[in-house]
């Protein structure tokens, strides 16, 4: 079971809400899809500048593995207030710890809910269907 202290998108991003702040990352399944367990296959991650305003569902960045480029989508909207710059130079963090050290951005939330958000159980169903 994946962490139930956060919400998920079917496109494999998560958001953890802490007061007015949303912490966003991608799931272990997303990493596995991109690199099949070979963490060195992750080669590039493009994250937004602080101050950018993203809408719920909007692409805020992109990640490249050796063989695919994929979008990073915002589960909720808001202003980007912090970027995990360590990720861009150490993509292995995403494979090692996607839930805590592997966070990508923090946003000041414009809203705290969206119909697109899934709880952990619903996200497990999505993964089960795609696996």
């Amino acid at each position, binding site marked *: 079971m994946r962490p139930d202290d956060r919400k998920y998108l079917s*496109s494999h991003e998560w958001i953890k809400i802490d007061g007015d702040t949303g912490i966003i990352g991608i799931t272990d399944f997303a990493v*596995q*899809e*991109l*690199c*099949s367990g070979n963490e060195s296959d992750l*080669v*590039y991650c*493009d994250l937004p500048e602080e101050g950018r305003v993203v809408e719920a569902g909007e*692409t805020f960045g*992109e990640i*490249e*593995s*050796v*063989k*695919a*480029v*994929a*979008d990073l989508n915002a589960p909720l909207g808001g202003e980007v207030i912090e970027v995990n710059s360590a990720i861009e130079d150490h993509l292995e963090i995403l494979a090692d710890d996607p839930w805590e050290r592997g966070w990508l951005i923090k946003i000041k939330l414009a809203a705290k809910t969206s119909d697109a958000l899934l709880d952990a159980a619903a996200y497990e169903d999505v993964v089960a269907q*795609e*696996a």
Partner: protein
Amino acid sequence: MRDWRVIETWGAPPGFNMGLDEALLLDADAPPTLRLYTWDPDTLSLGYFQRWVDVPGTARAGAVVRRLTGGGAIHHVNELTFSLVTSADDPLYRGPVPESYARVHACVARALGDFGARAALAGEGPLDSDRADTGMCFHASTPLDLAWGGRKGVGSAQRRTGGRVLHHGSIKLGTSPLEGDIATVAATGATATPEEVGRALRAALAEAHAIAFAGGEASPAERARADELGARYTDPAFLRRR
């Protein structure tokens, strides 16, 4: 059988080629599509994240674009370029990215076999075609690449957006001055046109994945969207954004 469309665009302009692939990727209502195409003029395509300065060959190609897909640069000359665009839940693409490559490459290898090229996955270890500092896709290899004679002969890359997948492939039929010492169909002693290899690839996909291909063209709306989206790919600001 599953219904797919095949679109052949021989000798198309570089921006249009990239724009049409993006148009098909972004349109969730577009039918699953195999594109078979070539370029006029010969074109060097940069990988989506590549830096302009890391590819010295840009000055020696007829045109330059930046692809939507990642990886290294490719000189599109004497080759068949193909794209496969459909939903990410298509049986071709389900599961991890490497597994989807294996499915596509099995079909490409089968098609190449018709022309005497015994293509197989490169596996671990370097290839004889690996070269440093060219920035070219064919001079860098991964275990998933298709090779024959110890050299890489097929370039591949994917873009995954909005629940859809664009798979780009480049099958080398002959040589390019920017891609020395790579595998080509011509090096096996065979001659093959892009159209012939395209037909073989179509047949291999049809048999392996129970696909019924119907010949078709991009719709007027798709062509208009391709022209609109295509302008970006040759824009100096996009080309030199990295």
